[in-house]
């Protein structure tokens, strides 16, 4: 099965994984989950930059009604690319593939993921999918929105087939990553690590993997049907040929609502890790958070119809979906309350990861609460497809997942690269992004309630002042992320050596040198207690510090 038998014995190979092999071949053909995680990290950061640039271009165009500097057609292509790149190229692979690949085996005390070659294949498939997606710009561009609603997507010109095939390929990468993680979590935990001694990030990744494995295939078949619709004129979704566009929306949203939980669940996992370490207190309600991750994963399959209340779906189905949508709000609320309670009687320090986490707490709370407006049928009629929806999902996806991703990046950066970044700029960028974010997207709530539709290139004059303010806000966000990126990249030049456990965390990945050696652990660790057993003031630290080698 594995021809690595050559260096099976561990001690001969104590070289940190970054130095274990030079040249691009050692990177592109590596089977080491840490290297694959780092490669994913650079790809998703580039994707985030590209998506971010399109966002700024869109906001610039919306400065005032009418043509500012691009045509309507170009604007439509920009918002499609902004949506597609951010969703498929950045936010779905970001935390599960980039951080999950790096951290999960370390947290479980395993040498690698269950199927290393499948892991590398997932990265290659992600690379091929991204190239196909970006090349669709050259072949005529796509201007259907990232949702590809039929019959517009089947009757319009442009490279829709190329983009849908690229998303199909990217979906495969997501399925294989999820599959790999579920087997790793079930089969490769360190001895003594029962399911309730696993860190909460592992629980969140487990729930995310279930969603990735169980929901993404339906996206695959949806896109295959869309390609068949465009090439063979099958007629399943095109009313001119006897099909039904609402059936497409059922297919699409059956994947896409679990997909939004694929995006937020890992973010919640990262927050559970960071909030405990920086308040030096055990998590409040470990089982509640673990079970609510699984609860969200299961219930997320029941609620997709709330995207279609006004799309011609029957009012009866709308009511059923609205009721179930309110059920899925409860596990998220439980998590937020548990995180807040974790801070109680802790010893809270405001390092960079904690600053990003506190900003997450505020923004995700607003994002979650505004979901109640859109879930209630009566109000959704007025708010559907307006800027209120745009603000809601940006608060949850950007205020939630993206800020949790950067909190995790600042938290695991010393472990990944063995270098510390400067605290000052990291904290400063967290504050700037928080301010810019609220300036940009809170105004969009007001735009939405006042009736400003989404995906509008030209709009009524009454919305102009708010749009202008929102555009200024987007510049502040751009500034914040530039400061953060420069600060993180500068850490490579400053070469400030990072200790093995800079934050005093108790999970397994901090018990090994940073950056870790290729085979992670000299001797497979034996776990004897939970992941968050912090000592209490005045009491001797529970058990010897070095409980695992």
């Amino acid at each position, binding site marked *: 099965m594995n021809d*690595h038998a050559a260096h099976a014995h561990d001690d001969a190979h104590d070289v940190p994984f970054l130095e274990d092999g030079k040249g691009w071949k050692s990177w592109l053909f590596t089977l080491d989950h840490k290297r694959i995680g780092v490669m994913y990290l650079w790809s998703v950061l580039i994707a985030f930059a590209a998506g971010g640039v399109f966002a700024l271009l869109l906001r610039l165009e919306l400065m005032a009604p009418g043509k500012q500097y691009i045509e309507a057609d170009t604007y439509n292509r920009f918002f499609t690319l902004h949506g597609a790149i951010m969703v498929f190229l950045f936010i779905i692979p970001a935390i599960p593939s980039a951080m999950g690949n790096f951290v999960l085996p370390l947290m479980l005390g395993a040498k690698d993921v269950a199927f290393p070659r499948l892991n590398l294949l997932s990265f290659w498939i992600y690379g091929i999918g991204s190239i196909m997606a970006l090349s669709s710009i050259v072949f005529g561009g796509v201007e259907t929105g990232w949702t590809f609603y039929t019959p517009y997507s089947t009757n319009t010109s442009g490279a829709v087939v190329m983009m849908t095939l690229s998303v199909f390929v990217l979906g495969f990468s997501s399925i294989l990553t999820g599959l790999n993680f579920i087997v790793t979590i079930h089969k490769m935990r360190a001895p003594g690590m029962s399911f309730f001694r696993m860190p909460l990030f592992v629980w969140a990744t487990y729930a995310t993997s279930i969603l990735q494995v169980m929901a993404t295939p339906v996206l695959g078949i949806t896109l295959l049907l869309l390609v068949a619709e465009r090439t063979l004129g099958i*007629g399943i979704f095109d009313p001119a*040929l006897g099909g039904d566009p609402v059936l497409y929306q059922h297919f699409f949203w059956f994947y896409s609502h679990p997909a939004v939980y694929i995006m937020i669940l890992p973010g919640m996992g990262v927050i559970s890790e960071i909030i405990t370490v920086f308040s030096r207190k055990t998590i409040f309600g470990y089982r509640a958070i673990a079970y609510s991750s699984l609860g969200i994963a299961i219930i997320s399959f029941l609620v997709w119809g709330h995207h279609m209340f006004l799309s011609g779906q029957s009012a009866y189905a709308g009511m059923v979906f609205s009721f179930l949508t309110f059920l899925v709000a409860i596990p998220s609320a439980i998590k937020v309350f548990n995180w807040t309670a974790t801070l109680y009687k802790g010893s809270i320090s405001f390092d960079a990861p904690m600053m990003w986490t506190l900003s997450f707490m505020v923004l995700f709370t607003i994002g979650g609460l505004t979901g109640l407006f859109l879930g209630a049928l009566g109000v959704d009629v007025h708010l559907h497809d307006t800027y209120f929806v745009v603000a809601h999902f940006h608060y949850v996806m950007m205020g939630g997942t993206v800020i949790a991703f950067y909190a995790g990046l600042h938290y695991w950066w010393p472990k990944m690269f063995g270098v510390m970044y400067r605290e000052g700029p990291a904290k400063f960028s967290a504050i700037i992004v928080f301010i810019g974010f609220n300036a940009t997207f809170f105004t969009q709530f007001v735009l939405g309630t006042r009736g400003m539709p989404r995906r509008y290139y030209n709009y009524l004059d009454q919305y102009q002042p708010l749009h202008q303010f929102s555009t200024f806000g987007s510049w502040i966000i751009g500034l914040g992320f530039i400061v953060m990126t420069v600060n993180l990249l500068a850490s490579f030049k400053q070469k400030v050596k990072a200790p093995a456990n800079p934050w005093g965390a108790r999970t397994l990945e901090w018990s090994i040198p940073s950056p870790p050696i290729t085979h992670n652990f000299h001797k497979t660790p034996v776990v004897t207690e939970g992941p968050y057993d912090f000592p209490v003031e005045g009491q001797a630290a529970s058990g010897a510090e070095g409980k695992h080698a």
Partner: protein
Amino acid sequence: MNIGIVRRQHAHHFATADQEFSASKLGMWLFLVTEVLLFGGLFVGYAYGKSVYPEMWHEASKHLDWKLGALNTLFLITSSFTMVMAVNAAQRNKAGEMNGKMVGYLIATIALAGCFLVVKYFEYSHKFHDGMLPGIYYTYSGVQNANAHYFFGLYFLMTGLHGFHVVVGMILLGWVLVRATKGHFYSEYYTPVEVGGLYWHLVDLIWIYLFPLLYLVG
């Protein structure tokens, strides 16, 4: 042909061979679930079409030759049986004495898969000739009800995707056959045969549902 067996050391990142075996099986089962959901999407399309165009659905399904479908069902069930006998032979192959049986059963499985594809070729060529093609290429005038291209669109999608999976299965089992002839599989290590078998049974399982839905009940 007792060419003995080639011993194998389990992958270094697994603690024991058994851990590796159960990991592979769980991984395969998860992949099979994604296949079930992939075909599930098509079955939902079938359910939609049948509920919105019931008369057309019934009339169009009359134009499928259920005898060929039944023949294909027999081929697939028999190939499932020979596959499972191959796995059984691998499990009992202590020192290479069962190699011959295992290789024989594998060849039978692949051959039956080939027959399935041949029968499918005849079905498809008959439909191509009559013009019962999906979507805008549909030129057949035998079906009275409108939108018959909807049924044939789904028919070609479902059986086409299934046929594609049969071809992938043949390639997969061909690779297992090549390794079996080299004596790689014995009672301690037969994972590829088992995993290949699981995939093949799922392909058969999907056909077990496709056959009555498309050919019989329509």
